[in-house]
């Protein structure tokens, strides 16, 4: 069987059980193509921008984000990414990385969180949130996902996320599970990670934020989920809404033990 992995090209080549010869050649070609792009991931550009934004004095309160508590104490960046989403006592809610960043931008820097959340992806402060998330994720590269399920809300959000994952709807009756519920499947030539369990290192939840070569955009996890819902023909999930955080909790808990490669480079 084929194991979905954009990283271990050799593994894919070796394990790729393609039905016809022409197909095999094509997928080998695609794997070579992906390998060629690994060196020189433009996500580096966003990572650099994010680091700069973290340290820069900005906003109405003229402050940096260096005191932001991402869950491991004020200013601790390394390791935070692989433990999110989690429950935060100060806001009394479940937050993912982006939701938490927006909270810090409001409390520390004086930005308007609601305004940022309403901003389209890639625009204004939202593009800064994405760059920040890219850098923070990069600081946990190689670390393994290990979300807490200690707090009652963390458990509840996992359960809600599971229900969202299997929620069929829209004109096509699609749920997340339609595409990500079985191992070794593809849409067109695109490998689909199974997301009901740990899909492996650097796959699925452990690959985003990622740079998308198709449109030259840096995609955060929020945008990844948003676009999945778009293609599912679902209505629009609010940025950092409870549904997206619950779904991310389900995916993150399932990814326990997977090493993060974010920021990755994707089609």
């Amino acid at each position, binding site marked *: 069987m084929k194991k979905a992995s954009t990283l271990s090209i050799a593994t894919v080549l070796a394990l790729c059980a393609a039905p016809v010869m022409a197909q095999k050649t094509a997928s080998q070609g695609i794997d070579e*193509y992906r390998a*060629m*792009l690994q060196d020189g991931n433009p996500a580096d550009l966003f990572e650099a921008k994010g680091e700069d934004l973290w340290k820069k004095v900005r906003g109405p309160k003229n402050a940096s984000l260096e005191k932001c508590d991402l869950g491991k104490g004020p200013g601790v960046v390394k390791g935070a990414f692989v433990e999110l989403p989690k429950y935060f006592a100060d806001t009394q809610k479940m937050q993912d990385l982006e939701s938490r960043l927006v909270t810090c931008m409001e409390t520390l820097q004086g930005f308007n969180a609601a305004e940022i959340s309403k901003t389209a992806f890639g625009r204004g402060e939202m593009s800064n949130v994405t760059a920040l998330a890219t850098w923070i994720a990069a600081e946990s590269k190689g670390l393994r996902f290990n979300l807490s399920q200690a707090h009652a809300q963390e458990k509840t959000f996992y359960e809600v996320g599971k229900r969202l994952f299997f929620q069929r709807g829209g004109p096509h009756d699609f749920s997340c599970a339609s595409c990500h519920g079985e191992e070794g499947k593809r849409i067109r030539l695109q490998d689909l990670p199974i997301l009901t369990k740990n899909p492996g290192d650097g796959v699925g939840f452990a690959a985003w934020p990622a740079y998308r070569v*198709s449109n*030259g955009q840096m995609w955060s996890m929020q945008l990844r989920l948003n676009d999945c819902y778009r*293609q599912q023909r679902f209505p629009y999930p609010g940025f950092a809404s409870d549904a997206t955080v619950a779904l991310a909790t389900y995916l993150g808990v399932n990814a326990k033990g997977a090493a993060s490669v974010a920021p990755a480079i994707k089609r």
Partner: protein
Amino acid sequence: MQTRRETLKQTAVVAGLLASAGFPQFAHAAFNKAAFDAKSVQDAAKAAGATSMAESKDVTITGPDIAENGAVVPLGASTALPGVKQLLIMVEKNPAALVAMFHVTDAVEANFSTRAKMGQSSDVYAVAIMNDGKALWAKKEVKVTLGGCGG
């Protein structure tokens, strides 16, 4: 599109920058618009100074056999031949064939890589323009596939 006035203004800026940076030895760094506007591989090479064209095993074009996405196709051009003035990377079926023109000096290897946009499957070319105006080229086919769901 650019207005004529903007073009003129920009030319002035470029000239000013070149002068202030004291770049006279890099006179060829001025943008060769004719080469980049040319539609075909031949016309672009000619505009870049080629007087004749011949296929050559001494020039190498690198790229994937299949590109999952035409927006980003890694391409490289190289040669070990002495006397190379410029190395060009071209995509035959793009609206304008020329993607990038690298000026070869004694200080760098004649080996350059970048990434190109491709509108469709096409032959891609590496063209080495020699000091005497001869252009030596190599080509390979790159297939561009349709990716995910959208299309």
